[in-house]
């Protein structure tokens, strides 16, 4: 059920008796730029830490504990080239709690979003310093995960220097020095006044009551244009290659391809099935031939980013096998282009995708994520997904496979 709370502020209510918990998602959406990701992540951290009524994170945490351990947290994410700040809340439903938790949680959301710890046009100094420092440390620590690091390095190789996509949704350490307790207030005001806002409520709730409660949030009308999440970039004339040496036990070989298949376009379902056959499922060619038959890797997977036109492969291997693995991967792709896969494999992947789709209805966060995409892209409700997956033919898969263009190869190796 859809309501407009104000111009540019949508409310989507999904009543269901399936869950014991109620879930709320509020997203603030704007195109990503070179500068805004880091600032908006720091802002999200500050907002979830304290408010005027709850001036320390302890005061806020105690209030949450009293609300049956309600979770209310903020973070950032991306849909293609759109940057989102997200507030998520989940809490025991009123029937089980035996009290009106919903109104109390909305009241707390109101505090967090509209009464941040800002005085005289600046965020509280000590809170700002600690959160800025913590964010720096958190981002630094992310790169200690070698799989994560290797993936980021591949993205840096794939995206040209001037691409906004080079900056990850969570930001980068170098940008933190530009942020102050004063200039972040402007970032806050921009977001709260000008971003497109979507609010989703899922659970055993009454839409009219929900609308009344959330209508209390003082959102003002705003002008929001059409949101264009789809990202494109030109092909490189030659493959970008990088080999990096670090003292690691397991080498990481990551490959990046351009694959211009986008969310809900004509090739979308064929793209999903192609990716499932290539490396996106345990029935894929990569899993079967690189891991199981050749015993070369513990993981060898592919994933399709349907807002970015990007297809990536990640593997964990022995450094000495890198050339062999690269050739083997190329061979799998050629076979997909040539239609060399059985009807059985195709059906297995389709069944797996159908099962994933059906099972996703049991996960509140998946339902909310899908509703968000639908709202942002202004799409009608998804229908006949199962049929669309099953309608993909072997010829469709080969056609999509032929659209794949190798762009970047990154190797993190422990051997010199």
């Amino acid at each position: 059920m859809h309501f407009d709370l104000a111009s540019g502020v949508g409310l989507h209510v999904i009543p269901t008796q399936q869950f014991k918990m109620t879930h709320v998602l509020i997203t603030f959406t704007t195109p990503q730029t070179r500068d805004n990701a880091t600032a908006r992540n720091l802002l999200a951290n500050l907002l979830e830490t304290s408010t005027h009524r709850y001036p320390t994170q302890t005061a806020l945490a105690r209030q949450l504990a009293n609300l049956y351990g309600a979770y209310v947290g903020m973070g950032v994410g991306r849909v293609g080239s759109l940057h989102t700040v997200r507030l998520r809340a989940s809490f025991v439903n009123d029937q089980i709690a035996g009290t009106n938790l919903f109104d109390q949680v909305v009241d707390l959301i109101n505090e967090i979003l509209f009464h941040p710890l800002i005085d005289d046009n600046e965020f509280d100094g000590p809170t700002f310093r600690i959160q800025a420092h913590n964010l720096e440390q958190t981002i630094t620590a992310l790169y200690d995960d070698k799989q994560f690091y290797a993936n980021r390095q591949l993205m840096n190789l794939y995206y040209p220097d001037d691409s906004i996509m080079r900056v990850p949704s969570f930001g980068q350490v170098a940008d933190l020095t530009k942020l102050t307790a004063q200039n972040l207030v402007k970032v806050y005001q921009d977001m709260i006044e000008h971003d497109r806002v979507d609010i989703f409520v899922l659970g055993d709730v009454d839409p009219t009551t929900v609308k009344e409660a959330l209508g209390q949030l003082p959102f003002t009308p705003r002008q929001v244009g059409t949101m264009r999440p789809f990202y494109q970039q030109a092909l490189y004339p030659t493959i970008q290659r990088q080999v990096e040496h670090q003292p690691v036990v397991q080498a990481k070989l990551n490959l990046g391809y351009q694959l211009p298949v986008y969310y809900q376009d004509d090739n979308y379902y064929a793209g999903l099935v192609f990716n499932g056959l290539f490396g996106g499922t345990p029935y894929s060619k990569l899993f079967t031939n690189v891991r199981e038959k050749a015993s070369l890797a513990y993981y060898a997977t592919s994933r399709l980013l349907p807002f970015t036109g990007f297809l990536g492969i990640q593997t964990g291997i022995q450094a000495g096998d890198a050339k062999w693995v690269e050739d083997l991967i190329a061979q799998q792709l050629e076979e997909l282009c040539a239609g060399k896969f059985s009807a059985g494999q195709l059906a297995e992947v389709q069944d797996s995708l159908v099962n994933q789709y059906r099972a996703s209805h049991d996960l509140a966060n998946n339902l909310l994520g899908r509703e968000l995409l639908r709202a942002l892209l202004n799409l009608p409700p998804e229908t006949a997904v199962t049929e669309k997956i099953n309608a993909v033919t072997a010829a469709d898969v080969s056609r999509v496979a032929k659209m794949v263009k190798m762009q970047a190869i990154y190797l993190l190796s422990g051997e010199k």
Partner: protein
Amino acid sequence: MDRQTYQEFNRTIYRQRLANGLLVQLLPMPGFQKTYATFSTDFGSIDNHFIPYHEQEPVRVPDGVAHFLEHKMFEKADHDAFDLFGKLGADSNAYTSFTQTSYLFSTTSHLHENLDVLLDFVQDPYFTTQTVQKEQGIIGQEIKMYDDDADWRLYLGLIGNLYPHDPMRIDIAGTVESISKITPEILMQSYRTFYQPENMNLFIVGNLDPDETLAWIEQNQNAKTFLPAETPRRLFELNDPTAHDVIPFRSLTMNIARPKVMVGLRGIKKFADGRERLRYKLAVDLLLDVLFDDTSDNYLRLYNNEILDDSFGYSFEMQRGFHFAYFSSNTDQMERFADEIVAILESADKQIDAARTRFNGIKRAELGRLIGLLDSPEAIANRYAGRLFDGANLMDEIQTLNSINLEDLYQVAKEFITPQGISVYQVVPQHQ
């Protein structure tokens, strides 16, 4: 079929022990599309010393056998069970812990056929020299992947401090060297000893009809013959049950940017039965919240002094034969972090005194978290720990938690926090 209804959560669980000893539990979740099934044996990485089925002499098997067996169960002479699930539209997987191995699938169709595949592949062992050799390569890569994982090294390093002469100190997957000694014979010996129906349980949650599902399972089991049951004879004994063998401190240098530290606390209490164990576990969970959760003054003070940051976490692990708690953070003040954690643990009584007003909120928050898990078929089945807690399920857990009071925490703190059980492990960046 035995049934138990939990009115407050609108859930009913059905139980039946089959003629062959297998325990079956079924928990329907109306409105869900998915069915999630786990088939588990009480056999994990620490069970490396035992008297094999129908033999007299004890054996010690190489480290990593339980996990290796888990990988190899899927492969058969002419097919892979994984593919059978795939053909039936199901996702399947398996995992091994210190004390348990579980095989599982999740499906939105063909429940009957998928159940047959699950029961059949786990009850039909097939190991050859050639397939064992191939798996040594894959698992070798898995072990190496974890070698580069600083958080895993921190955790395993701490367990090595807490149990320096016990099998928990070794990675669940074993080592590249130990798995090279695994043979089809060793796998079969462990299989016969620990994969008897009487040592296993089947837990199915989600979209299901209990009567129909039980009938399918019985039909499957009645068509098979099983060797006579023989309770597994494990020879696991802690090297020093009083924990005086704990190594107080070690550190490791790795190629990372942020230092990591973990403080561990090994418990030495012995339990009369599983329900007592569960009550103790839940009371310790609450105690740790009182001392360290984000509603505590301790947390705010340490956070504001940058002794810990958002990566801070703590947990209590109760397993068959041992239990411990750990506290970890990324921090530039590793010594200070350890000192502060230990000081808070040692002044637990005073901290409980000071928590009178907070306690209701803490308990309610813990209840809320467990109630949240009721929405997840996976969480309900994976959390089930069988004999460890005398068959308690998530709903029993919530009821037990409800009955714990602030006064209970004094006793638990006294029993759990002993000076010899404390240890510290660090993972330090290379350049420091």
